[in-house]
């Protein structure tokens, strides 16, 4: 079944030069291992293809049930140069939460993951 990341995690993002960071936090601690396994660097890089120009770095913070992603080349050269509405990367957080994950039905049931609303 399909699970929306926005239903199982929350997030906050910010900027540092031309890099946006997105911290993703599991809504329930028992969902963190699942989120950590699914949100690989490659998966997040593919999600932001065409949105950022640089690479993606990934860091795990199991102590906070969180992952931190650095999205390089996200801000047109940096906050003050950028012409974007989101020049400071404040809503890259919810852009990442748009991700939809395919999860085998029994795994989703075991973890109690909510199914995406149609």
């Amino acid at each position, binding site marked *: 079944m399909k699970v929306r990341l926005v239903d199982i995690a*929350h*997030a*906050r*993002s*910010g*900027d*540092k*030069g*031309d890099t946006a*960071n997105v*911290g993703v*936090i599991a*809504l329930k601690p028992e969902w963190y291992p699942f989120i950590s396994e699914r949100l690989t660097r490659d998966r997040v890089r593919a*999600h*932001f293809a*065409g*949105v950022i120009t640089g690479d993606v*770095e990934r*860091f*795990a*913070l*199991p*102590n*906070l*049930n*969180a992952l*931190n992603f*650095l999205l390089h080349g996200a801000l*047109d*050269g*940096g*906050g*003050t*140069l950028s*012409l*974007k*509405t*989101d020049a400071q990367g404040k*809503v890259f*957080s*919810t*852009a990442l939460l*748009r991700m939809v994950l395919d999860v085998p039905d029994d795994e989703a049931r075991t973890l109690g993951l909510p199914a995406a609303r149609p």
Partner: protein
Amino acid sequence: MSASPKADRIVRVASGQGFWGDWLEAPRRQVEGGPVDYLMLDYLAEVTMSILQKQKERDPAMGYARDFIGAMESVLPAVVDRGVKVIANAGGVNPVSCAHAVLEVARQAGAAGKVKVGVVTGDDLLPRLDELIASGHGLTHMETGEPLSAVRDRVLSANAYIGSTPIVEALARGANVVVTGRSTDTALTMAPLRHEFGWGATEWDKLAAGIIAGHIIECGAQCSGGNCLYDWRNIPDLANIGYPIVEARADGTFTVVKHPNTGGRINVPSVTEQCVYEMGDPHSYITPDVVADFTTIHLAADGPDRVRVYGIKGRPATDKLKVSIAYRAGFKAVGTLVYAWPDAMDKAQLADRVLRERLDRMGLRFDQLLTEFVGVNATHGPLAVSSGEAQEVQLRVGVRSPDRKAVERFTREIAPLVLNGPPSVTGFAGGRPKVEEIVAYWPALVDKSVVQTSVEVLS
């Protein structure tokens, strides 16, 4: 060692300002809403120093965050009568003038002699820039590796991020208000804890705990329910939001709280959101005082609107300081128009094509020309999903160029579209877009030995 009677002592540091422009009510609410020992006010963002530098060029007595003077007026009774101490990086590029303005506030309130202002200087490297480059400090861009000489003639400001040590010294010398220039945001919280608990300069775990306490409260209400995505609908009484306070203990553990009878919410999710804000490599949060490890932070609920923080580890500081350099980088302007139903998006797209064709025919060249459709895809770009016909769309076009004239000409091309472009257009009441000079940010490193801070206590 046996437990000293002071082992349970709590020092309260309150956050009253998360950036220059934050809620004017917050500092007063923090000192009046309950017990606090220190009020910490953070005014500086990456490019704030360059704005202040421009102000100082126009008037040598300016160059600091004027909001701070109003804040001091509002908290002065607490400082004078109840011994609350204030620590702020409001000094910008002119901490000495800022300190004199604070003393003037005290004098006018009849409290001269009861306010001692510690001033920290030495972070300003602008006057020394050529000397530093000549003696082999390249100040290369931390990300691109370019030498500073590439933009040297356009530099507006250059400041080293300095740590807690000079603030601790000012407190030790009896200051009850400390004003700094480009101190790190986190040092404003850590310094009073180091001063109160006597933490040594190599007690890495405690220093790291102080830094992380600072990180959690440095953005004001952003850890107490503001801008909080978790369960946002149910966060109570945002109109009356309580700003955060750290209740710190000598062992480096602390609890994040807010005053009673305030709105907002402090819980593990709200504090976690702030922990990950503007984070780089969580293993190495590098500050002038210590390298803090965010993967060692432990959070635990400790009653309503209380989160206990413990387990934090730190490592020795590096021998470098980060330098924040701002330089002129051309001009930009952003223009907007609003298109109404029916077919709002189609009309906005046509207007964008017309605008671009006109700019092109005039031969105007821009480094960048960006179109966004607000209400459709402005914030999430290609990730945005359409959910039916938009009821209205704001066309938002921005340009950037080293040529000011090209940007100015662009600003004259928006309004005409109201009469000579697609129909059902409105929302141009703000007039022509403003041309803004772009100030870009150049992060670099410099040897610590190069930067000598000094502390003066004025009264």
